[in-house]
């Protein structure tokens, strides 16, 4: 297995710690002039997203994590797995629901997603930053009702619920920012 020395540490490097893959968020080199050098790093667990601090004696080596970022097309879900396809090789991979997590509510069949592979298996699935989804359910807009800040909830075809302006009607196609979960606008079809 490939190893990285602390000398190679930098933001974005993927390493194994306690059996889990991590990405280095921040690497700080500290050393008293005549003293022992250390690398104090912030690392994010790629499975849980949790960020922790670790200190390494400089010169230590850690195992590299076999982690790769790819763009894959979402095909369908069978309830347990989300099936993804590499658009070049047509190779398919099954991502467990735990790898998809909250992203599931934005995933529409055929959309391209960012998939982090660890040992060639999907570790996390991220939806595109912007998705276009149809409104399946929303109350008819009531004119003059501003008590709810001029908005109302709308359920989209994937099950996600977003706040939309009062004039949005069922059946309309909307553009949504998946990072904030906010309505961006109507898509003219």
């Amino acid at each position, binding site marked *: 297995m490939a190893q990285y020395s602390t000398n190679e540490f930098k933001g974005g490097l993927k390493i194994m710690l306690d059996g889990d893959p991590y990405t280095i968020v921040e690497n700080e080199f*500290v050393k008293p002039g*005549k*003293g*022992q050098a250390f690398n104090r790093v912030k690392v994010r667990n790629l499975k849980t997203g949790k960020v922790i601090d670790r*200190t390494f*004696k400089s010169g230590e080596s850690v195992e590299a994590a076999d982690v790769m970022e790819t763009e894959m097309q979402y095909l369908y879900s069978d309830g347990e797995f989300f099936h993804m396809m590499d658009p070049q090789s047509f190779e398919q991979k099954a991502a467990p629901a735990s790898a998809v997590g909250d992203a599931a509510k934005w995933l529409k069949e055929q959309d391209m997603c960012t998939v982090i592979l660890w040992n060639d298996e999907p570790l996390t699935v991220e939806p595109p930053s912007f998705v276009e989804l149809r409104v399946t359910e929303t109350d008819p807009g009531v004119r003059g009702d501003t008590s709810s800040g001029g908005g109302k909830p709308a359920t989209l075809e994937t099950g996600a619920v977003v706040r939309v302006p009062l004039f949005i009607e069922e059946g309309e196609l909307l553009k949504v920012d998946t990072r904030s979960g906010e309505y961006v606008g109507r898509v003219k079809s």
Partner: protein
Amino acid sequence: MTDWHPTAGLPVLRRRAALIRQVRAFFDGRGLLEVETPLMAGAPAMDPNLDSLAVRRPDGRRAWLQTSPEYAMKRLLAAGSGDIWQLTRAFRGGERGRHHNPEFTLLEWYRVGWDHHALMQEVAELAAEVAGARPVEHWTYRDAFLTFAEVDPFEAPLARLQAQVDDPLLVPVLGDDRDAWLDLILSREVSPRLGQGRMSFVTDFPASQAALARLRPGEPPVAERFELFMDGLEIANGYHELAAPREQRRRFLAERDARGPAGAALPVDERLLAALQAGMPPCAGVALGVDRLLMVALGLERIDQVWAFPDEQA
């Protein structure tokens, strides 16, 4: 290629040039002799925490880039140079970070007949001249640890130092290396609190961290070594210089041993030892990081902001 631009702005580089003129005027005005010594040295630094970069030469002779001009300047002192100073480049392999670049600018000077207390005074005068006057305070290594980390660096058992760091993963890595634990506590808890808006001098280091300083007998004995901190940054390191050749050889050999099998192949600087044998006058000397002093003078956070082309773009 887009990274050909300097990382330091031109106003900073102008300020850097001005600082160097100030330094030269300071030492000229005080009658010290400016000297130059080889960057490419015949022996590496023995200090196990310094990585001397080896140079490949066509005739197969070995050479190392200096980590400081100390060994060579002491040979000049032994030859009767009197007070000397030098502004030079130093190289330390693997040292790269917010406050480190493997190549950096070092100001080093020696005062014959002085001790480290007198030299600290002069360091403060120089720093005030180029970075502005600040209150000066003095700490012993022990008091700084007691105040900021609430641990006694001399008396605390190893387990107490380990508990202070509270990182079980480091226990098998650092083991019973007391100085490594102390260095980590220093970096994490002590040095960030030193020199905030002032100049903080730390003296009386543990004997195990004497490097090239004299030891002062006592309970416990301490090294007559000092460091200057400004805004949490280590700026200068100085010694009441060890002049005894036998003790110097003993320390060199102990340091070489501490390097393990890789150290066995490294030559000890016999020319320095011969110079000490011939007789180096009693003196105090100090090395000061010019890049960091410039950072402090300008209130900058990263060494890349005062250095045109850092390591990755050199």
